[in-house]
């Protein structure tokens, strides 16, 4: 009887010790995996930030990065959940898909309005192929690295289809961005065959942004951010011009006055009023040329 008890006690101890070691090794393995994953994600995130910064000075920059959980919000900034922390992608990365579970591609394109207003950086979903149908601008195809198709049946359901003609929605991919040919510069969004709405795109950069955002709400949210920033910069530059004017030589005054007037106009302008923006841009460039010619600090 005593011998049996002794035998059982030994086995119980072996079982307890075994379970302890097993749990310990599982915990260590999990910890190492999670730390490695977090560290890779953080490194990718920093790479993305650097690329976005480089993209501002060299349009066309491209990077591929991978996140296990990248969630973007439209309200103020794009937030990424990494290593249990929410990290923000700077606000100039304006257009990105709502949720990416895999790789993403960042491409940059400068919204050049003749005067440095703002830079746009697009985040495109790598996993989702882009197809172009119809006579869409050739540069646009190159930028998007899109495949050309003639039939909607050739595009997979998870693709983004860019077209300038009404497509056969029954066979079209779930997301369709329609650019109607014509002078009104409208872009229409369709999801699963249903018309979601249309927006203005005013120039090529914003058309690219519309395609990259794939979603009317997201695109318009991006537009509002750009517009707010543009007005802030207009006010900021106007204030600076007024300060410099007060210290500069009298020969510079008329050029500063003209630049201040243009910046006041820009402060009241909406982003969709491209003609107005172009006119302000020309005015600012003219003022800057006069300032340079007179050796006065530029705007």
């Amino acid at each position, binding site marked *: 009887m005593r011998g049996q008890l002794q035998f059982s006690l*030994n086995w119980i101890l072996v079982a307890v010790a075994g379970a302890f070691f097993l749990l310990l090794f599982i915990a*260590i393995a999990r910890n190492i995996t999670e730390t490695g994953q977090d560290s890779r994600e953080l490194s990718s995130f920093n790479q993305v930030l650097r690329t976005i*910064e480089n993209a501002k000075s060299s349009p066309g920059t491209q990077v591929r990065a991978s996140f296990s959980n990248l969630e973007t919000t439209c309200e103020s900034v794009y937030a990424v959940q990494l290593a249990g922390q929410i990290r923000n992608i700077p606000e100039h990365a304006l257009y990105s898909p709502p949720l990416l579970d895999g790789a993403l591609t960042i491409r940059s394109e400068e919204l050049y309005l003749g005067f*440095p207003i703002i830079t746009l950086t697009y985040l495109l979903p790598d996993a989702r192929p882009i197809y172009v149908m119809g006579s869409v601008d050739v540069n646009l195809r190159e930028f998007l690295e899109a495949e050309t198709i003639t039939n909607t049946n050739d595009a997979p359901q998870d693709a983004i289809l860019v077209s300038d003609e009404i497509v056969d929605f029954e066979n079209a991919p779930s997301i369709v961005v329609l650019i109607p040919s014509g002078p009104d510069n409208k872009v229409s969004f369709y999801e699963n065959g249903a018309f979601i709405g249309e927006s203005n795109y005013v120039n090529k950069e914003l058309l690219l942004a519309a395609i990259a955002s794939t979603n009317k709400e997201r695109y318009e949210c991006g537009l509002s951010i750009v517009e707010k920033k543009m007005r802030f910069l207009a*006010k*900021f530059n106007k204030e600076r011009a007024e300060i410099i004017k007060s210290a500069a030589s009298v020969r510079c005054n008329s050029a500063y006055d003209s630049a201040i007037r243009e910046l006041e106009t820009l402060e009241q302008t909406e982003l969709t009023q491209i003609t107005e923006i172009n006119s302000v841009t020309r005015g600012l460039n003219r003022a800057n040329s006069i300032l340079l010619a007179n050796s006065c*600090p530029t705007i």
Partner: protein
Amino acid sequence: MKRAQLQAMETIIVAIVLILLVLLGLFIYVVGSEDVAEQNQRQGASEEILTLGTRLSNMMELSCSQRGRENSVCVDLVKAELLGAWLTDPQNPNYDDTIRLQYADVFGSRNITLRQKYPAPTSNQEIVLFDGLTNENYLTQFIPVVIYDPQEETYVLGELEVRG
């Protein structure tokens, strides 16, 4: 004490010693990983500050308007004074919480200060560009810059102190 009891005691002692050894190993591992985590955190923070340096040099709200000075970080003094006042002084009429929030995304939880270094300034004047520091345990790094004063049309050497 009988032989069987002695054997049982021996087994228990061996198990206890084993568990103590494993706990010791675990303790060493945890302390070690904390060190590695802290090191990674410091390295990450340092990388972020370097990224911030590039970001600041590209920001049109700070950079000099003149061309031909792309090789060094050039900060426009008037822009720096305006931006600092608009972002950090709630009494300023142009202070806006939403705009501050937007810039908080760029600057992060950091304090960024601009100061002249050479020629040595007559007064200890510095411009606080952003005051978002919330962490008591922070790193301080310095980014050398050229400061351009468009009112006087002069260039001096300075530094951006980044705490975060």
